[in-house]
């Protein structure tokens, strides 16, 4: 058993034991970190191959709102509602991604098309204010402690759920990283035509990873909604969320397994720390520093914190991919 594996198990054991010893406030933070880390990991699945999507706010929004609305208006259990929301997101991803990939809408153009998608979802949610409450937000019908409604006032339940989700996210990332798809996708991200010429089914590989990424993001959004019991178009959808996802991943490290998680840990602790430190007098302070850090990260550490640290260990042969194609 390698040192890395032992460390991983030890870390996992600590994570499992945490709810017993941490006060509720920290548990609340941990749940958020894990949930966002899951969503960030989902985004990085496609982001690392150069398909930079600004549309993940849309997938998260759909994933969060569909089960919440179905439960509140029709009493449909989230056990069905969540798969429906995830399915709808996957369908949305397919509708957007298929023509994009087919017509080689790449780079800036892909980023901006997906940006338009997240605006469409954000504005539709806001416009349907009779149903969704618009920008005032939406509070799903409370059911107390209920497995049927997937609502638990105790934080430890959601801690377990988000821990599980996060592990699933890492597992999927690992599967893609270790699988044949990774080679194919890396080839595609470097030269699509050349990749097609050596027999890679470019369209299928790209769609595959996009739909996985969108579905996981929607799942993360759904659990986010179940946990917070409050949805607002601006906090679960739209350009702000999409940018938040992209940046946290870039800061943490887009090419590494734990990069998105570190991004989530870093950004949330920064936001919370500054919030506690400055109080509410300086509402913009956290994001101001955050913005500066992001710019610095992109200029000086384009591979993120984890990527840079791994890059320092030059003796490791099985490191992540070198600096992206320039």
């Amino acid at each position: 058993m390698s040192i890395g594996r032992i460390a991983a198990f030890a870390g996992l054991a600590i994570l499992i034991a945490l709810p017993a010893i941490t006060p509720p406030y920290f548990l609340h933070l941990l749940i958020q970190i894990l949930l966002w880390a899951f969503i960030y990991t989902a985004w990085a699945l496609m982001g690392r191959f150069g398909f930079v999507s600004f549309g993940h706010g849309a997938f998260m929004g759909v994933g969060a709102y569909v089960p919440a609305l179905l439960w509140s208006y029709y009493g449909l259990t989230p056990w069905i509602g969540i798969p429906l929301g995830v399915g709808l997101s996957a369908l949305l991803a397919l509708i957007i991604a298929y023509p994009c990939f087919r017509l080689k809408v790449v780079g800036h153009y892909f980023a901006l098309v997906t940006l338009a998608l997240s605006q469409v979802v954000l504005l539709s949610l806001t416009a349907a204010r009779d149903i969704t409450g618009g920008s005032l937000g939406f509070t799903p019908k409370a059911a107390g402690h209920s497995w049927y409604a997937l609502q638990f006032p105790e934080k430890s339940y959601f801690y377990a759920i988000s821990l599980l989700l996060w592990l699933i996210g890492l597992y999927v990332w690992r599967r893609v990283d270790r699988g044949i798809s990774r080679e194919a996708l890396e080839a595609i991200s470097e030269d699509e035509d050349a990749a097609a010429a050596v027999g890679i089914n470019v369209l299928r590989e790209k769609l595959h990873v996009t739909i996985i990424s969108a579905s996981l993001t929607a799942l993360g959004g759904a659990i986010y909604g179940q946990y917070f019991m409050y949805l607002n178009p601006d906090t679960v959808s739209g350009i702000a969320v999409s940018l938040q996802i992209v940046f946290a991943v870039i800061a943490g490290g887009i090419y590494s397994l734990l990069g998105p998680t570190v991004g989530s840990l870093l950004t949330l602790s920064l936001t919370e720390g500054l919030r506690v430190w400055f109080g509410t007098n300086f509402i913009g302070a956290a994001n101001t520093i955050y913005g500066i850090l992001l710019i610095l990260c992109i200029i000086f550490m384009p591979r993120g914190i984890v990527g840079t640290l791994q890059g320092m260990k030059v003796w490791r042969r099985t490191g992540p991919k070198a600096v992206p194609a320039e």
Partner: protein
Amino acid sequence: MDIYLLEAIINGILLGGVLALLALGLNLIFGVIDVVWIAYADIVMCGMYVIYFLYSEYGVPLPIACLIAIASMAALGLVIHLLIIAPVLNSPPINQLLATGGLLFFLQSFATLLFGTDFRNIGVRLPILEVAGIYISFSRLLAFAVGLIGAVMLFLFLKRTYIGTAIRAIAQDRDIIGLMGVDQRRIYLVTSAIGGALAGLAACLLALQYDVHPFIGNTFGPVIFMICVLGGLGNMIGGFIASFIISQIIAIGGYYSNTELSYVLAFTFFIVLMFVRPRGIFAR
């Protein structure tokens, strides 16, 4: 024809003037430097704050406040280029996009930190004109006229001056231009300053119509990108025409339903058009 619909169409055309100005600035920068300034609309926000504070708080006459805003936004454009764009010029395009995205975060939250989230209005009420039963706000008409004049001036500058010619040349072929004895870095600086100044000019026009708050950039930003992409990134004439197409969709859509849905319509139109003409409507 329904008079209100006509009014909506006219307002759409007037809105198109301001959007065209913003699209021009963004297209100029993209065409020359090959970087998309995601934070472009937030530079406009900064300009609006400059006008608000100079005019409302310090009593500087409005035209002078506007000139100062334009000049300071030109300076901001320079600073942005030197501090953020220059270091990432040779990075992958997506990193450049993200660097200016970081700027967006920074500008919005710094404005929140400094000024809070209050909506502020400079409180200038320009008259509303009535022409044959149609009401046209004078501030919008002014915005449209100034937007057009700005566009024409930019066009003349690019066509008639030496540095304008150099700017157009660099947009056509980045590698050869150095051999022609043009200093690329200087052109980049001039372009960034012009881009900033255009954002400042747009700020003057928008400050007359809208309240300024830290997130006002989010209202215009996505629409401007959409316009630029629709016209073909870097294609200034395409962007100019696309501004009027999009502003009509927003105006007429707003007439039949509500504002949000009209934007949904515009964005959907954009997505669909991207599939029909992936390089913009006017791509050759």
